[in-house]
């Protein structure tokens, strides 16, 4: 289960208004307790395992959460239909700006043209510029600034 999946789960828990959900998968246990207040807590996550082949097993989860999670996944996939997904060509660290002082290369909603630099992925102290593969509107940026990304991980969604 990667960091993004955990974040999605937190969103789900807060939206559904249920008390808590516990997920165990390949030795990783994540327990999320919801509160009526805006903040959530993530507890007892010993090792974040990035990416796994198996769907998460949800124990003692109230029925609505599971169906809602499934619905979200389905909606996510549906919302990606017709979008061009740019994935990471290398392993490394994702940066949205050329250096910490300057602003990001792109924002969600920006118009991009093929060849425009969208981000930098740092691997072995080398800054690799990732360019837009098509012309279109940038509708989604998946990783957070400074987050490690694997080969093949989703970086951007572009609507042609």
């Amino acid at each position: 289960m990667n960091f993004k999946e955990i974040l999605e789960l937190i969103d789900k828990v807060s939206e559904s208004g249920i008390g808590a959900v516990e997920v165990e998968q390949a030795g990783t246990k994540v327990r999320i307790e919801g509160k009526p207040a805006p903040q959530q807590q993530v507890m007892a996550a010993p090792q974040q395992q990035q990416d796994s082949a198996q769907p998460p097993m949800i124990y003692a989860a109230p029925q609505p959460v599971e169906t809602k999670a499934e619905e979200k996944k389905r909606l996510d996939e549906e919302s990606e239909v017709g979008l061009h997904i740019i994935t990471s060509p290398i392993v490394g660290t994702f940066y949205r700006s050329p250096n910490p002082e300057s602003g990001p290369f792109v924002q969600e909603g920006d118009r991009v043209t093929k060849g425009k630099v969208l981000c930098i992925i740092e691997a072995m102290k080398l800054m690799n510029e990732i360019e837009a593969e098509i012309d279109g509107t940038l509708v989604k940026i998946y990783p957070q600034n400074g987050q490690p990304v694997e080969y093949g991980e989703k970086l951007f969604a572009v609507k042609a």
Partner: protein
Amino acid sequence: MFSKILIANRGEIALRVIAACKEMGIKTVAVHSEADRDSLHVRYADDDVCIGPAVSKQSYLSISSIIAAAEITGADAIHPGYGFLSENAHFAEIVGECQLTFIGPPPEAIRLMGDKARARETAQKAGVPIIPGSEGAIRTVEEALDVARGIGFPVILKAAAGGGGRGMRICWDAEELPNQFDTARNEAERAFGDGSVYLEKYLERPRHIEIQVFADQHGRVVHLGERECSIQRRHQKLIEESPSPVITEELRQRMGDAAIRLCKAVNYVNAGTIEFLYQDGEFYFMEMNTRIQVEHPVTEEVTGIDLVKEQIRVAAGEKLSVPEGPFKLRGHAIEFRVNAEDPVTFAPNPGKIRELHLPGGPGVRVDTHIYRDYVVPAHYDSLLAKLIVRGKDRLDAIARGRRALEQFVVEGVKTTIPLHRAILNNEQFIKGDLSTRFMDKFTM
């Protein structure tokens, strides 16, 4: 000691290293290609990173991806396993430059031993017997003919950068040499990007006998006895055992001393293997493998030393844990390589493992990464499992091997298990009358 080791490999050896790390309380990082997403090494490691597509060049051979994976996961050492980047001096150098520890020998030793012609020269200077042959690489057919006539036919042509049987050609007379020379050069160029070849006397019925060596950073070098790996087909080992049925204590010490001299000559550190050909009481240096070997469990079973843990300890700067003084090999161990191959044609046979039962019980060890429903990818080598059996003597080990192979069930892909069963019932094998030509005449 290291806190987190990245394993730059896949399959059973990645699991083997993870096992050693777990027992030593060291965290692990698995790297994998897209084709290995469902592999056990990914599941068992503490962290895992997808480093590229199925094709090895862009994943398991991609130095920058592996280093980046080590950086984002905070690993402090890299174990290269065998194959892939394990004998790449450039990789070992970069690992060091990135303030990580390469669990293996120094880059200079890898580079020197990786060039077969220079390795031979170095061995000769260190007083290690070598097979008569050309002085370094051969450039022209005329030069090849000259050398061949000098040492007498048959001769063998080998790629200077080679290994694993590619770029090797046997010539029985002067007539076929020109064609074979061209073929060997082309094969070497294609397989290793370096068309240099050298030539040496071809032994007709040699045994492949190798010495396991280990050196620490404090100048101590030991040998851990021999492994006989004569049962090969197309220069790929199928069965390995220790001790060899023909090596006497006196010969073991002579070969071991020669191996140690070579290690000292190249300032070797960590685990290594020196391969010899043996015929009629004489042994000749063939090459040195500067990494852990596939067949290392055979030595582990007869010495009681965990070679992978020893590699990690030595890389961390600790002294060798091998006791001082003469040692004895205890009992007899045999390893069988179970490959996803047609046992008769040896054609690779990737696919889905539909049913699996692994043998167990006394004296049986199986090192494997497969499980039921695992899909054997077509992109990598065909090794599925190593069955290692141990007995009080050779016949005891053979009997145990027969029993374990009977219990070993793999369905869905063809494997070399039926071939191993047949070999264990072969009169010549049982007598220990082995040579690297054994498989040429063997029929199931």
